[in-house]
């Protein structure tokens, strides 16, 4: 029999429209989360049963499960990047403004992971702030800051004009101020990491930062031979895309005091998720919003970046290798490569590889120690759903 107050809260929630009540997650105690997440779980299983388990159904949105906490993260981020001078605050906070936040995949994954591995059953209902949860949110904030700092520098390096559907920061304030803003964000993130008072966590994040730079270096200085190597490509992809999320997932596990096995599983989830994400990204650069070639940006290949679909195509058509080694300064080379790509199984094989990584990510979640806690279970389900969601994205 649930305490009356909880029943009331549950009633209140079901009375209001689909969780649009702005319940502050800080005050959301354990049992509220149970109710909320059980709704997610039920909707997931409802979907499974209602259409006889057909595959092409609408997945429950894993982002929705944790939406409020992620909003809290974004709000905090805005205040965390306040600098001594307004010019710096505005450049550093450029991507944290309302409407500019993007999908906030990093914080979503991390907060879900924190719930998924949680073994702490006793939340103090009377407490205002769930201390361990607060620390996990810190990791989410730090990771997002590192991510944004990296985006900003990437745009400077690529001379990009747009990002997230709006002007890039370097387009708005110039390269130099953008570079400085990125540095500022990086070290703010680092200070916040240090405040967590856990040297292993700091180490993991520092490693992630280092990996990001290494990945970028690998891309900038690639030789013709390396351009044709799938191993080099996958390593570079790990560094550039997966290293941050995998190390932060592990950091979340470390902060929770989990065993090394659990830490490693968290890490593996992040790693496979990141790689799967990037592989689909590579496909989308060719296919765009439709399934056929020719309706997308081709920005990768135009910048001379050779991705998985082309690498697979090269395995089928060895003559492609010579053209790839030549590089893509000559636009006719691009056309030739695209023709080969269309003939080949490159796109399909990349999709298969992405699915493989998604499966491995889900497997990591399944390997987590068993739990009966509904919050834990629904978070784990959400993490698995996320891998599928990535595979199906069209933009």
């Amino acid at each position: 029999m649930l305490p009356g107050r909880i029943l009331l809260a549950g009633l209140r929630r079901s009375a209001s429209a689909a969780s649009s009540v702005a319940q502050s997650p800080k005050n959301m105690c354990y049992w509220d989360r149970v109710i909320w997440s059980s709704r997610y779980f039920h909707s997931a299983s409802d979907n499974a049963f209602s259409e006889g388990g057909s595959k092409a159904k609408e997945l429950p949105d894993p982002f929705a499960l944790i939406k409020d906490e992620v909003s809290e993260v974004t709000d905090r981020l805005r205040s965390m990047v306040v600098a001594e001078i307004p010019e710096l605050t505005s450049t550093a906070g450029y991507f944290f403004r309302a409407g500019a936040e993007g999908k906030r995949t990093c914080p979503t994954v991390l907060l879900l992971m924190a719930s998924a591995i949680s073994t702490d059953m006793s939340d103090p209902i009377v407490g205002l702030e769930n201390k361990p949860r607060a620390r996990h949110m810190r990791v989410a904030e730090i990771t997002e800051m590192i991510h944004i700092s990296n985006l900003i520098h990437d745009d400077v390096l690529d001379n990009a004009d747009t990002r997230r559907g709006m002007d890039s920061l370097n387009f708005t304030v110039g390269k130099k101020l953008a570079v400085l803003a990125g540095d500022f964000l990086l070290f703010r993130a680092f200070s916040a990491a240090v405040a967590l008072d856990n040297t292993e966590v700091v180490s993991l994040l520092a490693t992630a930062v280092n990996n990001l730079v290494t990945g970028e270096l690998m891309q900038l200085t690639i030789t013709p031979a390396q351009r044709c190597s799938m191993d080099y490509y996958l390593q570079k992809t790990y560094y550039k895309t997966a290293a941050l999320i995998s190390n932060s997932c592990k950091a979340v596990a470390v902060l929770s005091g989990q065993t090394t096995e659990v830490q490693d599983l968290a890490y593996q989830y992040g790693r496979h998720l990141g790689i799967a994400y990037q592989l689909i990204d590579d496909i989308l650069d060719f296919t765009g919003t439709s399934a056929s070639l020719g309706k997308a940006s081709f920005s990768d290949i135009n910048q001379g970046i050779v991705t998985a679909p082309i690498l697979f195509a090269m395995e089928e058509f060895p003559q492609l290798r010579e053209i790839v080694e030549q590089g893509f300064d000559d636009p006719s080379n691009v056309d030739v490569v695209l023709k080969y790509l269309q003939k080949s199984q490159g796109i399909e094989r990349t999709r298969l590889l992405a699915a493989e990584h998604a499966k491995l990510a889900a497997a990591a979640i399944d390997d987590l120690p068993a739990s009966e806690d509904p919050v834990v279970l629904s978070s784990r389900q959400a993490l698995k759903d996320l891998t599928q969601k990535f595979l199906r994205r069209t933009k």
Partner: protein
Amino acid sequence: MSWRWALARRVAKLAATDGGGGAQAQRLLPTSSAAAGTGLLGRLHMPLASQIRSKVVGCRGAALVSSRWLHDAQYQVRQDGASRAQEQQDPFELVADELSLLANRLRSMVAAELHLQVPKLASAAEYFFKVGAEGKRFRPTVLLLMASALKFPLSESTEGGVLSILADKLRTRQQNIAEITEMIHVASLLHDDVLDDADTRRGVSSLNLIMGNKLSVLAGDFLLSRACVALAALGNTEVVSLMATAVEHLVTGETMQISTSREQRRSMEYYLQKTYYKTASLISNSCKAVAILAGHTAEVSMLAYEYGRNLGLAFQLIDDVLDFTGTSASLGKGSLSDIRHGIITAPMLYAIEEFPQLQEVVDRGFDNPANIEIALDYLRKSRGIERTKELAREHADRAVKAIESLPDSDDEDVLTSRRALIDITERVITRTK
């Protein structure tokens, strides 16, 4: 060992007094070796050099180096027969060997990490860590001297024991601070050099230039990320906090410089704040970090901080003067690069206080070289240069005071390092380039 220190102390003291010191110093040493020009200390001289170069310079190594310094001082005295103790040995020499060690470590770190993938980047970053570049090893020198100046006394009986191993470990960590500081400094130089499209439009927007931009950003990022890793490895929250603050200040200072409004450009307060951020914050925070690593009290750490801060400010103020005067005493012979870039520094700000009409000239900007001449004219008439030098002297004095306020010690190494730190403030003020 202690008798050698006692001897060295006596020699140094005698060398410091005027007249007759030389003769007395001579008498202290055995005559045969005195004739040969090598004393007891001298016999240490030759093996010292090779010893130090071939092994890690721990705190004892630093002590040996400084005894060599003392010997040189004494040797000079004997050379001229009169005390020339006023002619002190170069404080940079004091830590020269340790510095090469640091520089080599940095270079090999860069080479190891980057060489496999990015030879171009490796040479870009390596350039900055080249050994022997004139006047460039300022920060690490100050930090290593500060580390020595703050040493807790090691009792003689524990030499080679646990305490001395711990002391060596501390020294290594303090060396790491010096390395991290240098990495941050170079990264900030690289990022400050990033050109905007506006700049390339005036010049030639060649592939080289664009490549240069990319490499600058990436090389800087690389150094910053390695600094993060090294800081994480130190495992000291407060130290990381200090260095993160320093980076933040560097960024803030540079942003202030780029985006100053007209009103701000007139303000001496704004200028000094910006100068603190751009020049003094890194050295002051790293001095404080060195103190904290050694386990000193907040009070002592603040003294280290104050030394760094005032030294940095003094350095920049003299830099501003030299940009006008160059190596000559007269104005206008310097490179004038500040004013050409529209950067208004202390001498000009002081001049504006005296001649308000100069403000209008400054506001017009300095694309027109005739305007520069007009401004220089006002500057000549004003006391701008003098007042800047006075302010620099004031900061140098405060730096000296901070050193003098450090807790007493009779460790020779400590005293030597403190003297060297004081000497550096003097050099900063009196340098001509």
